[in-house]
């Protein structure tokens, strides 16, 4: 693997706004990162120069807009809380782009890829959908409740079909996003519905997924069952984000691999759960 370029940048915040509930949307200027970023890669942000939080925090690259890098995040603890209080014009210390993103074939070939997002896991997938748009990606969005369904509009704007599942049934299917996926594949197998899932079942495209670990594990099982490829983006606690500390490993058939360096995107069949 060739060494990829990355940069440490004092990046000016262009905006930082609440989307809904605890979800925020932030953009900063970082031309050099913007230029190289690929879907599925992430940035590692130092949100404050104090000891709390001490370490950087990783965030998927949500989208690139010219020289701006955008992220989408949920406030879950100290660092994300501090981040949410930052104002336009303030600076962030950002390292990126980091990790290996999703790999996809030229869009002509990858017909109707299936993108599965669980909760905040949607973050890297709009950027991916943009790249795959000629393949008419199908988006399956899962969340606990309607208010936590993110990016539906953005996907539709690009021109993707979106299906939704919520745990409480407040929007779309009542159940897990993996139920959507199963229904979708099962139906295609039976030939019951129009064969949008056919390219997937024939190995001509793949599932691209990001979300909570149990969801990704379930998708791995599904992928295995149907003998299809699933590229999944994993999370692990990170100390360095650049492959130096060996902290963020995941068990794979090749031994422990670093989520921040060999990942965060892995072939689901590589992972030992």
């Amino acid at each position: 693997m060739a060494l990829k370029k990355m940069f440490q940048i004092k990046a000016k915040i262009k905006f930082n706004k609440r989307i809904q509930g605890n979800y925020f949307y932030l953009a900063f200027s970082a031309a050099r990162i913007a230029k190289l970023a690929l879907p599925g890669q992430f940035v590692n942000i130092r949100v404050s120069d104090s000891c709390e939080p001490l370490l950087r925090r990783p965030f998927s690259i949500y989208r690139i807009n010219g020289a701006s890098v955008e992220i989408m995040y949920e406030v879950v603890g100290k660092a994300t809380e501090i981040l949410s209080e930052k104002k336009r014009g303030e600076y962030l210390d950002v390292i990126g782009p980091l990790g290996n993103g999703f790999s996809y074939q030229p869009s002509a070939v990858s017909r109707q890829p299936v993108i599965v997002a669980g909760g905040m896991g949607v973050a890297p997938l709009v950027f991916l959908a943009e790249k795959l748009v000629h393949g008419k990606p199908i988006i399956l969005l899962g969340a606990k409740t309607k208010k936590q369904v993110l990016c539906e509009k953005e996907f539709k704007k690009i021109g993707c079909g979106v299906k939704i599942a919520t745990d409480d049934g407040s929007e779309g299917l009542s159940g897990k996003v993996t139920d959507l996926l199963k229904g979708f594949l099962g139906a295609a197998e039976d030939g019951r519905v129009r064969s949008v899932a056919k390219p997937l079942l024939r190995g001509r495209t793949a599932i691209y997924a990001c979300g909570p670990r149990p969801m990704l594990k379930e998708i791995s099982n599904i992928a295995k069952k149907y003998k299809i490829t699933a590229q999944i983006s994993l999370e692990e606690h990170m100390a360095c984000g650049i492959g130096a500390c060996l902290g963020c490993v995941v068990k794979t058939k090749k031994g422990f691999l670093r989520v921040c360096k060999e990942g965060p995107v892995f072939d689901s069949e590589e992972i030992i759960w």
Partner: protein
Amino acid sequence: MQKNISLNIGNLRLKNPVMVASGTFGYAEEFRGLVDLKKLGAIVTKTITLKARQGNPAPRTCETPAGMLNSIGLENPGIDKFIEGKMPVLTKLGIPVIVSIASDEDAQEFITLAGKLNKVSAVSAIELNISCPNLRHAHKNLGDRQLIAQDPKVTFEVVKSVRKITNKVLITKLSPNVTDIAEIAQAAEDAGSDAISLINTFTGMSIDVDKRIPKIASGVGGLSGPAIRPIAVRMIWEVYQKIKIPIIGMGGIIDVSSALEFFLAGASAISVGTANFINPRAAVEIIQGIKEYLAESKIKDLKNIIGGLKT
């Protein structure tokens, strides 16, 4: 006026006293592009063992107040693959490479490891990691103690046995998990170590109270970062009173001010650890900051402030 910040550790000449600590800088290549690696005083590699080690399951790290716990479990490719695969890249950096080694079962391994490194001319020094909290009971004479560096006799024995077979500069890395650090440092000096590195991490534990499990998979891990700095500085000061060989100080150094605390307490050189994760340029910024401090304080040579604490 030119300020001198170069120094010797045994026969090893360092152009400046700022190294990067074992296990916190990978094999340097990970930092390429973020740091001008050539500016570093030296790089200490991740600790290498005889056989490859796959390390511990994840999560391997967690943040704690002003610090972090890690239990990497000494994941490394083993000495042969290291020499073959990593040393050439390190050598090309043109800065001194200090190879950290540990024995994961048997103290005899240290001799084997050092023997292999003897043959690699690009290895500037060997650091004996006898203090890794993720390697327990690595010596038959340890009794109730968990680490070699917790027992002055075993420390003496291990350092001596390596000293006998190598002319390379030998550094012994000590553990802070002891009652009397100066006693262990003394044992290492008596056994012929050229320098002392301290401190390695404290054994610590952090609990996820909702899940009622430890935050890192292996339960206990090593505590590093600014949180431990006052203890590290005190230990350097204690050891400095007792031994004559140089001390390489570390533990929570994040900027020039924290680095200077170590010099004033008696360190001849310092190592930047956890701070590399937070700010990859930390070590290089510290080098620059030391020069500025000397200029402002009108001090010609960094040596003049080593142990210069007024009490």
